[in-house]
């Protein structure tokens, strides 16, 4: 019998620690499938964030470094400058990338650093128990916006893809979502292209992935997928912002 579904080689055979219904794990799988398909597991170095994915260096079979909160793009820069022939990626949450690490991601993009960032936007600080993230939606109730995010007090959520796509050094920017099969397929395509853009040396590439956090959203896994579709996508439109036409 033909095997139609198997664990990607680039994913270590261990059970992951993510909550039920969390899409972090599925996104790991997509990244690993891309490493397999491009045949680059042995020449890739990844950088883990601080956030729920802090220990995904245990899950990817390629060499990995674990970075301080928000600093993954700087760590990746150091790695890439030492190994310009290798593929280097960061995997970062929204607190990591869009709050404490804003300077690092903006300048890695501005330098056109030839790295790829997989950016997990779940509109919340998952790991530290559901505080407001820079990407939390207006009105969203979190442990630090218990009356809902109020623009007059907490401003507006940051549209990272739109912001980074204004930088000339950012070669490829796309926002995708994990809320259904069709979109998961698109997410994989975007991630694959982002890695290829790096391989071709065009510059910085990033894929923003709208992701669930059932635990801190206080929703069931199914409700969470629906919430991405109904609440997140209207504010965070899906699609390519830059680099769709690049030859890879």
């Amino acid at each position, binding site marked *: 019998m033909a095997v139609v579904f198997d664990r990607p080689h680039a994913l270590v055979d261990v059970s992951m620690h993510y909550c039920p219904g969390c899409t972090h794990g599925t996104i790991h799988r997509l990244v690993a499938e891309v490493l397999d398909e491009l045949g680059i597991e042995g020449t890739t170095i990844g950088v883990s964030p601080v956030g729920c994915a802090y220990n995904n260096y245990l899950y990817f079979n390629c060499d990995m470094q674990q970075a301080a909160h928000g600093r993954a793009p700087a760590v990746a820069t150091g790695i890439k*400058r030492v190994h310009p022939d290798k593929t280097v990626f960061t995997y970062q949450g929204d607190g990591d990338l869009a709050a404490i690490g804003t300077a690092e991601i903006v300048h890695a993009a501005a330098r056109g650093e030839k790295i790829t960032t997989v950016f997990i936007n779940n509109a919340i600080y998952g790991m530290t128990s559901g505080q407001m993230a820079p990407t939390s939606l207006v009105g969203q109730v979190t442990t630090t916006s218990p009356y809902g995010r109020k623009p007059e007090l907490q401003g507006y959520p940051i549209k990272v893809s739109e912001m980074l796509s204004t930088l000339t050094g950012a070669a490829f920017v796309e926002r995708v979502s994990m809320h259904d099969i069709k979109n998961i397929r698109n997410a994989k395509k975007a991630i694959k292209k982002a890695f290829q853009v790096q391989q071709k040396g065009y510059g910085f590439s990033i894929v923003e992935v709208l992701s669930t956090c059932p635990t801190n959203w206080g929703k069931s896994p199914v409700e969470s997928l629906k919430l991405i579709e109904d609440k997140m996508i209207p504010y965070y439109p899906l699609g390519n912002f830059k680099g769709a036409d690049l030859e890879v």
Partner: protein
Amino acid sequence: MGKKVLMKGNEVIAEAAIRAGCKHYFGYPITPQSDISHYMAKQLPLIGGAFVQAESEIAAINMLYGAAGAGARAMTSSSSPGISLKQEGISYMSCAELPAVVVNIVRCGPGLGGILPAQGDYFQAVKGGGHGDYKMVVLAPASLQELYELTVEAFNIADKYRILTMIMGDGNLGQMMEPIEFKDKEDIYEANKSWATTGTQMKREHNTVTSIYIEAEVLEAHNNKLQSKYTEIASKEVRVEEYNTENADIIVTAYGTVARILKNVIKNAAKEGIKVGLIRPITLWPFPSEAFARNAEHTKAFLSVELSAGQMVEDVRLAVNGKKPVYFYGRTGGMIPTENEILKKIKDILEKQGG
């Protein structure tokens, strides 16, 4: 030995680093050490390395983390306010046991302070300015020849023990010019870096560089491993200069360029029949405690002279352990003590000691 060249301190650091095999440098501009960046920006692209002007000192130290974790000999440099920003990365790199060199050309603080020479970052460097139980080897050269040799040595020590090594200088050292005699070939410690993230090539298990250990037993075991490494370094890597200490009535101590002033003071004192010795710590950590303890047996008192409000003097007191009185004389804000000021202080002390 090669021929002598006249160079500026900051450039000596950069040149020595390159000679030690450092091809990757990450920095953010700050006076009085920016010449290091300028030199690296010029030279590294020519030898297949990389100079990156980071967006901040935080980014620079994390780039250093990535580069060191990827197996390269790499360096960052800054001055006091920038070194404060690097403390996060220093703690992480210490935990992850990443070998690299951090240069601090100290300026006066606290706060934005001023750009003149100072030694107010001693506590931060040797007691751990970042969080957790870690140590860096801290080297304090007093001349440019020594700066050159210790910079090369800093890379060797870093690689040998998988530790961060800091070069602590002050604005005087960075800006002064002296003739340097470069070696034809440097002694390079060849480390096995099989732990580094260089890509598995599908030929080995994946390597991970990390500073996170969530389980208590595992983190304690890691801490114990770090501590035994520090103990080994403390027993093997102490460097100190002792000058005129035998029969000295009083022993003065200072590190870096201040020790040069003290040598003149010692000569002037000798003319007046006062026997003054000098202990000059070259490694600030590990601290040369033994030299102080041994000399405490015969000398009458110690005097620590610093460009600070009194920092190294605490380690002198610990080393002397109450056997003899330990005095302090310091200037701050970029003021430099004069030979006469120091000699007067010495005379006051000896008078008090009945000498």
